[in-house]
């Protein structure tokens, strides 16, 4: 029997139809999808006994209590502790998956030397001793050439912070630079004498006037954000959001006041003008007359023109703010100039909100139990007061993240032969700007104490206790600073492990018998006086508990100066730029910019928001139409400082006349285009747009 080609084709045709009528394609497709989740190189946690352990999250100062589910001894999931007085069971999306950070692809376990050349960087591994030798050599060189050695601490108030200060106090030309909430630092420096740590008491405020602070976007601690939203929806709290963008917080605010970008200082001083004119202020400042002469040029009519809002809006906002008690004005310390921060903080001083419940809380220092530092005044510094190009060695502690130091500012202060040493568990954007990276443990691998969050009324202290060992080659920041101190001949630096030092701190807190302690195991909050021993306190703190100070009533304040930071605010300059198309940084609605994210973030965020993408320029459709730009087309942004290519995107949340460019995708390219003020904050920059 001869089989023809046509018959074979018929057989194949029948088979093809038959295949579609069988479960093979559908079942194989379904099972293959599962198979892709089980590739052999995907690590699988070992099976074992399930247990629950308690600790505190160290990713940010919020210090949320965490219940860790472990299989064997390996943490596999995290959840909040409902009864925790600070976090109240809330965790942020980063916190929920914080146990994945141990496996982050950018994790480093050996010290690295990073060589920057022609815009690219190359890293080589080195031993810890080699790194120590190189850094101590640079320190000796700094001593000879009278250059500064700076220690930058993104999370002041910890035991490690005290060691950093001890180190800075004893090395020649040492400076300790702390970065907490910068706007509160600005407020603190307006007083002639230190008044103690400050914090926003958002919980008790009736009216919050926010200058671009993303309050509904986890700016504060997760629990407070949730509580704040709850109160707002219940009508117990009023939020006035003054912001150029229609952000999520703007949308949720009781009132959104859209102002031109870069005019926050003018709006705040316009409010101050109204407050003084209508005699709504009881402030007794030494330089009140000088301040009055400054704000006299910021009349509501002039400010209204500069900011692009009505005169009534300024007057009404000033009246609501000063007549509602308690009220508080807040501003984001990262994206605003020092003048703008000062102008907003002045509002709090004018209406007497500092030291009031629901205003700016004055908190007590939390004792460390470590030796006092004698010349604190001379070593404590902020980055702005350090002369440009004067830092020879800059040690940045980024082991716990949260360092808000601008790279531009860093480069400005660094000497030509200056080196940056980053203490970080990851090699991400900032450590790439460093010359040395010293690997540090991540959350769940090391013990650290945590200081008070910036949006709480009272001081607090928690301890993040390790549940897993850190990999070989990783060193604790205090071990590094102790070794470096030894190499530099610094003798009076605390010895001992972090556990020993933090335990000593807990002992001192117990000895002072003040405040309350939360025990997460029992869910009980009890006075320190009621605890039987230091061990009781220690055991409560290392198992997800926390210590909270009793609120202090501040009766008197040192004198303050209102005009201290306002010398550079010029209404004429602000007026001249109002009709130009300006370039401003735009915060993408994505979390990818934080490279320390876990792949499981896709469970809580859209994958499109987690992926990196090219540079985009966002324009209001009205503006785009006027200059003839279509959605998606390639454009060139040209400023006096240079040009860059971007993809044009329509976004109705952008105010007309503004080009918002993501400062997360290619930050260095973007920063190179922008004008900076003296404090290295980005100013709105005039820009021209051309099609490619």
């Amino acid at each position, binding site marked *: 029997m001869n089989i023809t080609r046509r018959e074979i084709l018929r*057989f194949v045709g029948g088979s093809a139809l038959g295949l579609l009528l069988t479960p093979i394609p559908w079942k194989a497709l379904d099972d293959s999808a599962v198979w892709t989740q089980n590739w052999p190189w995907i690590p699988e946690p070992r099976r074992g006994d399930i247990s629950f352990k308690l600790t505190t999250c160290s990713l940010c100062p919020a210090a949320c209590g965490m219940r860790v589910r472990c299989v064997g001894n390996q943490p596999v999931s995290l959840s909040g502790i409902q009864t925790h007085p600070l976090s109240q069971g809330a965790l942020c999306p980063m916190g929920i998956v914080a146990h994945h950070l141990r496996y982050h692809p950018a994790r480093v376990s050996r010290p690295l030397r990073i060589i920057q050349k022609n815009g690219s960087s190359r890293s080589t591994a080195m031993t810890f001793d080699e790194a120590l030798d190189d850094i101590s050599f640079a320190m000796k060189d700094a001593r000879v050439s009278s250059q500064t050695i700076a220690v930058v601490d993104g999370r002041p108030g910890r035991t490690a912070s005290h060691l950093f200060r001890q180190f800075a106090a004893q090395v020649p030309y040492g400076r300790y630079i702390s970065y907490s909430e910068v706007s509160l630092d600005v407020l603190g420096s307006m007083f002639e004498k230190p008044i103690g740590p400050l914090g926003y008491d958002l919980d008790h405020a009736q009216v919050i006037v926010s200058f671009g602070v993303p309050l509904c976007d986890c700016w504060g601690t997760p629990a407070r954000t949730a509580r704040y939203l709850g109160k707002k929806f219940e009508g117990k709290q009023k939020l006035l959001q003054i912001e150029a963008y229609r952000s999520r917080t703007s949308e949720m605010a009781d009132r959104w006041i859209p102002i031109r970008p870069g005019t926050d200082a003018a709006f705040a001083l316009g409010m101050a003008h109204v407050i003084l004119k209508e005699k709504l202020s009881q402030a007794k400042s030494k330089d009140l007359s000088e301040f009055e002469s400054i704000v006299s040029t910021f009349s509501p009519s002039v400010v209204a023109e500069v900011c692009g809002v009505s005169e009534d809006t300024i007057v009404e906002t000033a009246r609501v703010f000063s007549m509602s008690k308690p009220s508080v004005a807040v501003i984001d310390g990262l994206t605003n100039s020092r003048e703008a921060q000062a102008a907003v903080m002045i509002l709090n001083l004018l209406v007497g909100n500092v030291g009031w419940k629901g205003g700016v809380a004055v908190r007590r220092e939390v004792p460390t139990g470590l030796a006092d530092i004698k010349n604190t005044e001379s070593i404590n510094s902020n980055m702005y007061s350090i002369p440009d190009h004067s830092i020879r060695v800059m040690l940045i502690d980024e082991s716990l993240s949260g360092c808000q130091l601008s790279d531009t500012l860093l480069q400005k202060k660094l000497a030509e032969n200056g080196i940056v040493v980053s203490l970080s568990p990851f090699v991400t954007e900032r450590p790439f700007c460093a010359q040395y990276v010293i690997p540090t443990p991540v959350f769940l691998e090391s013990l650290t104490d945590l200081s008070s969050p910036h949006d709480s009324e009272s001081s607090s202290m928690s301890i993040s206790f390790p549940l897993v060992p850190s990999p070989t080659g990783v060193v604790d920041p205090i071990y590094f600073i102790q070794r470096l101190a030894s190499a530099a001949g610094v003798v009076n630096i605390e010895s001992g492990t972090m556990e020993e030092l933090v335990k000593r701190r807990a002992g001192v807190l117990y000895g002072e018998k003040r405040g309350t302690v939360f025990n997460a195991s029992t869910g009980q909050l009890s006075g320190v006086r009621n605890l039987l021993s230091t061990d009781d306190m220690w055991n409560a703190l290392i198992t997800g508990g926390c210590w909270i100070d009793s609120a202090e009533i501040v009766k008197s304040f040192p004198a303050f100066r209102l005009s201290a930071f306002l010398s550079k605010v010029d209404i004429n300059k602000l007026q001249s730029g109002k009709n130009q198309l300006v370039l401003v940084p735009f915060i993408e609605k994505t979390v990818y910019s934080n490279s320390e994210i876990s792949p499981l973030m896709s469970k809580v965020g859209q994958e499109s928001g987690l992926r990196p993408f090219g540079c985009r320029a966002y324009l209001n459709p009205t503006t785009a139409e006027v200059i003839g730009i279509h959605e998606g087309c390639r454009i060139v942004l040209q400023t006096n400082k240079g040009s860059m290519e971007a993809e044009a995107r329509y976004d109705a949340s952008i105010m007309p006349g503004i080009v918002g460019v993501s400062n997360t995708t290619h930050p260095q390219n973007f920063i190179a285009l922008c004008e900076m003020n003296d404090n290295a904050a980005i100013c709105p920059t005039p820009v021209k747009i051309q099609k490619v």
Partner: protein
Amino acid sequence: MKFQFLWFLAGLCVMLFVGWVVFPYLLYERKEEPLQFSHKIHNETAGMSCENCHAFKDDGRFTGIPTLSKCRECHTDIIGTSPQEKKLVEEYVKQNREIPWLVYARQPQNTYFSHASHVKLANISCDHCHGPHGTTDSLRAYERNRISGYSRDIGGSSITGIKSASWDGMNMNDCADCHNKHNIPNTCLKCHK
């Protein structure tokens, strides 16, 4: 002319046979359990209940499949003449070696499932998901899907995916269907923590 149509029909029939008979046979790898166990004898003769071995701990957690220590409570020495009993005592109890049970209902690592909330709070019986497993006289072969690597009990016994009973299938759709039916939230983090 009529034979030409037969070629098409032959191709169709061959593929239907392969798809419905050969493919399911090849798809699943059959493995016998290391030891035969009779739920029936333990329930009826020994007078035990499910909770004797599959218990909840004091803290609310489910113990799952009992470990050797539970078997040892009764089987320190051989009881009766069964060869399986002899194997249990000689190969596992006396050598203190855990029995490597092949678990029909084992969920993948990325799935979190709480027996406590389903059994204690929702009052769902064991049978609802596991079927009449507690009355069987012997353990059936464990069938592993060669592509996905999961037990056949997870995907469901039928190759078509059509459920014949509430316990026929334990994959994500089955969980979601039941949650939807009882108006229980179905967020991703509920199961994938």
